[in-house]
């Protein structure tokens, strides 16, 4: 059985995560679409911390016999992986859009006849 202290600590950490995410959305520093995975992470970890019998059952399913809170750790890790992977796709999309913008700018500048042809400082 999961020690009670571990369950409480897990629940508190999950609630803190959820509150931070909420505050970031409220202050417009985090868009809702990127917050969804974080909220799911917080809710699932909170659920597994609070529902102690459930954590034990799941630990039994996946063959974790010694220490059920290890499942909490594993689930948390998986969610972090999901968030990171999601960010990689977001970065890829931004990079693609960046290329298109740069190309459009070059084409437009040439059309408008704007922009000097002098050497530029490296960026």
């Amino acid at each position, binding site marked *: 059985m999961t020690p009670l202290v571990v369950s409480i600590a897990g629940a508190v950490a999950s609630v803190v995560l959820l509150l931070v995410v909420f505050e970031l959305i409220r202050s417009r520093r985090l868009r809702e679409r990127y917050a969804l995975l974080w909220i799911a992470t917080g809710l699932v970890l909170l659920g597994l911390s609070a529902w102690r019998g459930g954590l034990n059952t799941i630990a039994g399913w996946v063959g974790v016999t010694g220490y059920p809170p290890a499942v909490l750790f594993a689930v948390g890790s998986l969610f972090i992986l999901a968030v990171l992977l999601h960010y990689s796709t977001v970065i890829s999309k931004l990079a693609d859009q960046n*290329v298109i913008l*740069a*190309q459009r*700018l*070059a*084409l437009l*500048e*040439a059309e408008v006849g704007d*922009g000097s*042809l*002098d*050497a*530029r*400082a*490296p*960026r």
Partner: protein
Amino acid sequence: MPEVAHAVRVSVDARLAALKRVAILPALNEEGNVGPVIEELRRLDPDLEVVVVDDGSTDGTASVAAQAGAHVLRLPFNLGIGGCVQTGFRYAYEHGFELAVRLDGDGQHDPAELPKILEPVLAGQADIVVGSRFAGTAGYRSSRSRRLGIRLLAWVVSALVRQRVTDTTSGFQAVNRRGIALFAHDYPHDYPEVEATVMVVKHRLRLREVPVTMRERASGRSSITAARSVYYMVKVLLAIFVGIFRRTATPLEDT
């Protein structure tokens, strides 16, 4: 080839003269090389529009190119060769060009070899023609590791496209309107020639290789180092592998 006086207009193939045509030169810090290439191209074919895509050069590449009579597209920052070349194809597509040739701005592609590359396109036998350093007897000197890499890629690509391809990294190419349309809409990022070869065949465009001789760089250094070659190799193999599972789309026709 007989030496022709500069003032004499070289007669251009009638099939070529009928087409709106453009040369695309990607260039990154090539102020020492790009000028002569442009002049040579204009001497060979005065009606050929030369477009230099400046991939964020910090030297005088853009002004040298403009002075030599090229149309210069300046990218605001370095995109890498794929994004750079695609800018040229977008320009060609949007301005209704029917034929595009691509040469490197560093002068290693000899404009005098252009007729060889153009012939299959003009004859309607191919949509894209690639000048290969290895297809014929033409000599090409390169480091051993780099040659090995090129061989390996050639082998992989040949197996995938079920057609013998000897030089998958050659940027010396000619494409017709169909090829321009395809590349304007979809062009691979880095080391694009390898991926583009597979892409072209998957889109059922006809690919042809012709042997060409390439020159040594006139000045400056190639941007490809040994460590980078390995990195590119891994990345390009991944891209090719994933590309096999990508749904093909026929290039958009003109609207």
